[in-house]
């Protein structure tokens, strides 16, 4: 490494206030890119891809021929991304603090709430992309099933498409929310996986909590998203539990990010 010639940068003096704000679309693009440009993020995406492919292999290799349908391949294929994409959502927020990049992120975009909005938008987009990729993979697997004597039927209830998409989005945003609330990677990951499970166990074992669990246990209420034609009661329960596990922590976490001093 040697010293180089002085910069020929011309110091312009633009009028500072007149500048356009960085548009949210550009910030979202940056946040999407940040999901995949580190070794941790890239490998997480690769593992999700491989695990999703593995679900198809398992179905084709070991499931009964009659079960080898597009619908079954697709719903089983959603499991890896539903479990692991939220970790990406957590990292998206916590890495700014654990890797101290918040310092440069917020000097380039002082309006922190816009950075949080971009992270949420990036989370939604990555969830949509994962769902589409799963559908493509399931379609390929279904073609294979047709060739190897499986059922291979293509029927998929349209409501399931939207519902499964919503399922993915809810869990990625829950990752964002837990990341923002705790601002600590290991703590947020443990809390994300442990707390809902603890709540499920408590709801199952304590009679007094059973009614509440039916409304507030996201693990239970989100199951309905993988069955077609959700009832209004199921939607209400899902909304209530998502408010508690996703919306509330996301709001509190955003307030925390806005207030926290960067050093």
């Amino acid at each position, binding site marked *: 490494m040697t010293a*180089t010639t002085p910069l020929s940068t011309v*110091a312009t003096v633009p009028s*500072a206030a007149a500048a356009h704000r960085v548009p949210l679309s550009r910030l979202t693009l940056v946040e999407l890119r940040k999901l995949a440009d580190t070794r941790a993020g890239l490998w997480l995406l690769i593992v999700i891809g491989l695990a999703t492919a593995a679900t198809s292999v398992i179905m084709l290799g070991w499931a009964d021929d009659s079960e080898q349908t597009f619908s079954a391949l697709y719903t089983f294929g959603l499991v890896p991304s539903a479990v692991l994409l939220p970790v990406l959502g957590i990292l998206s927020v916590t*890495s700014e603090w654990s890797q101290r990049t918040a*310092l440069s992120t917020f000097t380039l975009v002082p309006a922190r709430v816009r950075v949080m909005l971009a992270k949420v938008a990036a989370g939604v987009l990555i969830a949509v992309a994962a769902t589409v990729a799963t559908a493509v993979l399931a379609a390929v697997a279904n073609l294979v099933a047709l060739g190897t004597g499986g059922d291979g039927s293509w029927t998929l209830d349209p409501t399931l498409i939207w519902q499964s998409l919503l399922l993915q989005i809810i869990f990625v945003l829950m990752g964002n929310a837990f990341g923002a609330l705790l601002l600590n990677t290991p703590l947020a990951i443990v809390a994300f996986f442990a707390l809902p499970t603890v709540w499920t166990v408590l709801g199952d074992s304590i009679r007094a909590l059973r009614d509440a669990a039916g409304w507030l246990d996201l693990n239970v209420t989100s199951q309905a998203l993988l069955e077609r034609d959700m009832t209004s009661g199921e939607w209400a329960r899902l909304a209530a539990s998502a408010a508690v596990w996703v919306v509330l922590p996301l709001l509190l976490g955003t307030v925390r990010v806005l207030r926290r*001093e960067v050093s």
Partner: protein
Amino acid sequence: MITVENLTKTYGTQRAVDDVSFTCEPGTVTGFLGPNGAGKSTTMRMICGLTPPTTGRSAIDGVPYQRLGNPGRHVGVLLDASAQHAGRTGREVLALAAITMGLDTDRVSERLQRVGLNDAAAKRRVRAYSLGMRQRLGLAYALIGDPAVLILDEPANGLDPEGIHWMRGLLRDFADRGGTVLLSSHLLREVEVIADRLVVIGNGRILTQGAKEQLLGAAGTSVRTMDPAALDALLQRMGLTGTRSADGSVLVPSDPQTIGQAAAAAGVVLLELRPAGAGGLEEMFLRLTAGPQPEEVSR
């Protein structure tokens, strides 16, 4: 241009920054001097909108940092070269900044070359960078939006002598083209070559500020004598307090002519009589900043 007006930051009962005001004009390099924990970094973080001030305000070209629409195009900021994701490559770090500012990522390679990071270094992850390389990457990051103002916290940290020399040239060139530079350091020697103005801070308060020549001129006189006792008596009669340096000379807060005339009148033999300059300023600065309590290390 950077304007800082009465910035104050208190943490609990401790005043980290206490009523700090100064201005950095276009075309100048301002050295922000003070020991560790004096409040330099906190002041700079407040200017950049990262830490809300308790009272007071600051602005870049008359606009508070928070209200700059695309700050990277106006202000280049390097507060901590180590605050980059260890798992990103140097090229990626700059690309993210360029995209955020709405610039073409084509400029990234060239900018890395300019700060002395070649293609091989650009492809490596920041984890593998030395502190000097991180500082160079940080400078490229601060400069990528072609800003008119630079705010740099201890940019010479970790650079080798050649790197420090290179950085001085870069900043001098930047200021000569009409840019405004604010850079902090805890070593006067590091900034006295390049700074036009100095702002000296200690225990959160501004101790002195002004043009470098003026401050160096006012730093007192270095006096050496054959008879220290006679000199002490003379200074006492003049109402001055001298500070004895390790090399045996005495730093007197007065000009050489006054002391020379008084010494001649009193018959005190002087071996050396000269303006103390940078050494004197440093000594004054150490004396002013040495508090009764041990210095707290800045965060």
